[in-house]
């Protein structure tokens, strides 16, 4: 059991799933679901391995860094893999009913590619390999957005593609500078050989700029709302919950493990931009008339919170940001899935015309409500724990102004969530033809929303997992 390379299986299983779904499009739904379940099992296996034996390093090809590529599984990557697996399973279940029968032939291979890219990204310990996985991720995401067809989705996808390629190229130039400065692309070796030099600062700037573009931090967020709102609902959920988090994860690894942060100016800048994102995204979300656009702007706002950890840079701050990442992934996926169910039900997603959704789709509204609870940061959800940790970090480091941002952001979130919930109880002027929402769609959304709340009740376990291996295990030693 312990010798099975779960990490490798986690990456290869979705690839096998892709090939199978591409070769047999008529059976792509059962094949895709089977692959999803398989990945969940493999992630559990890897989790067991990491908890028992500590952080795992796997030398592909037997060569080992710097000549070969290493896979590295510690608490952080395990948590990312776990949330991807849970959200992925939920979305897979949702998608079995979302698409018209026979119309999902290309969704499943693309979705499996996306999952493989995410898993490969979270396990990679090599910055050039990270570039390849980042490109795989970006192309899969763009193709999935474009599946919706129509002018909005296609232009949103095109803009997303250009932005994604720009970000990757900037990142790659940074990789080139780092390799030619230190002679390796392995993260651990770079951390060992790191010394401040103009090349390192430039590489840091280039790589951060590219990754920030992909994580849609203000003011580089302009591409996100059109792409996330016009994509098919399962894709919107995937993008907001997982894809933008992947580039944030990379940024976190690079900043914590490789780059020497002698002064805090870059961190303060990121925190400032994050604060603006929280307020700007929240205000714009309030102004939206369409539900999916509201949720997309909510993503912009919530992503801003993640960057508040950079100026504080203590262990508690990082844990808070990570916890927010995990709860947001679950809550946002649930929210988009609920919105998709509402869209399916009424044929539109105009907030003002929600037409008594509360009575007619109680499960869906419950899912939206619970996800909203986590987004607002109310107890006992994961979002509450995350904001609590961030508040504690802000007060302990004496940077109390971030606490104000957290509170204001929470108020804005409450405003737009409650606005939607309020309209869900009203009757529309013109009653619309309603379609019955398939059971898997409603339950998948509710399950993920419940998971976001459970994350708050069972907080000690994920927090303990974060301690395993880098970068937080090393934090104490710095």
């Amino acid at each position, binding site marked *: 059991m312990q010798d099975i390379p779960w990490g490798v299986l986690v990456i290869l299983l979705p690839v096998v799933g892709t090939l199978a779904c591409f070769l047999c499009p008529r059976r792509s739904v059962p094949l895709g679901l089977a692959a999803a379940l398989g990945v969940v099992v493999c992630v559990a296996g890897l989790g067991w391995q990491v908890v028992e034996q500590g952080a795992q390093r796997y030398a592909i090809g037997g060569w080992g860094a710097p000549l070969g590529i290493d896979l590295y599984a510690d608490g952080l990557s395990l948590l990312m893999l776990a949330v991807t697996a849970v959200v992925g399973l939920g979305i897979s279940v949702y998608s079995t009913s979302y698409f018209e029968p026979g119309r999902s032939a290309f969704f499943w291979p693309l979705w499996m590619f996306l999952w493989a890219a995410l898993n490969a990204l979270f396990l990679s310990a090599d910055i050039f390999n990270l570039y390849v996985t980042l490109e795989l991720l970006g192309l899969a995401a763009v193709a999935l957005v474009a599946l919706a067809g129509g002018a909005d989705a296609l232009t949103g996808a095109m803009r997303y593609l*250009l932005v994604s390629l720009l970000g990757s*190229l900037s990142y790659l130039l940074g990789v080139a500078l780092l390799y*030619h400065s230190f002679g390796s692309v392995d993260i651990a070796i770079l951390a060992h050989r790191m010394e401040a030099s103009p090349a390192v600062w430039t590489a840091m700037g280039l790589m951060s700029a590219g990754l920030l573009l992909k994580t849609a931090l203000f003011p580089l967020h302009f591409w996100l709302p*059109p792409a996330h709102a016009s994509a098919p609902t399962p894709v919107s959920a995937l993008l907001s919950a997982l894809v933008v988090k992947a580039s944030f994860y990379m940024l976190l690894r690079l900043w914590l493990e490789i780059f020497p942060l002698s002064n805090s100016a870059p961190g303060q800048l990121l925190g400032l931009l994050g604060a603006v994102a929280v307020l700007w995204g929240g205000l714009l979300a309030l102004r939206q008339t369409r539900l999916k656009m509201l949720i997309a702007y909510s993503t912009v706002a919530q992503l801003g919170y993640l960057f508040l950890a950079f100026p504080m840079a203590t262990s508690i701050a990082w844990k808070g940001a990570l916890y927010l990442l995990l709860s947001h992934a679950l809550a946002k996926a649930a929210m988009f899935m609920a919105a998709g169910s509402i869209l399916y039900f009424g044929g539109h997603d105009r907030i003002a015309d929600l037409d008594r959704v509360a009575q007619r789709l109680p499960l869906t509204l419950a899912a939206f409500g619970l996800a909203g609870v986590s987004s607002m940061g109310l107890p006992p959800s994961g979002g509450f724990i995350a904001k609590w940790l961030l508040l504690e970090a802000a007060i302990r480091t004496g940077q109390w102004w971030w606490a104000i941002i957290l509170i204001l952001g929470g108020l804005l979130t409450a405003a737009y969530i409650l606005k939607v919930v309020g309209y869900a109880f009203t009757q529309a002027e013109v009653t619309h033809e309603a379609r019955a929402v398939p059971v898997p769609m409603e339950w998948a959304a509710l399950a993920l929303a419940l998971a976001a709340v459970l994350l708050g009740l069972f907080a000690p376990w994920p927090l303990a997992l974060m301690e395993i291996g880098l970068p937080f295990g090393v934090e104490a030693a710095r």
Partner: protein
Amino acid sequence: MSHVFLYALVGVGLFTLGLYALIVHPHLLRKILAINVMGSGVFLVLVALAARTGGAVPDPVPHAMVITGIVVAISATALALALMLRVQTETGQARLPEERIE
């Protein structure tokens, strides 16, 4: 300054020129070409600096990286071109619409 650095500087120049063209030109085909030029710039930097081994064979790892990068760039370009054609079909022109709300 060794001649190797000349190639690397050209790569930097291509990267910047491509970035300018990407931002300035509204037509999608030009944006896609600009991305390709930027990509070529980065690859040039990678490969040029690999020749600094001092008389021996150049460092093969950046060469392999660039081969990988070229394949990735081709794949991305192909997807971008197909997407551009669909945008053209749907909206009548190969441009991104101005955003209505920021």
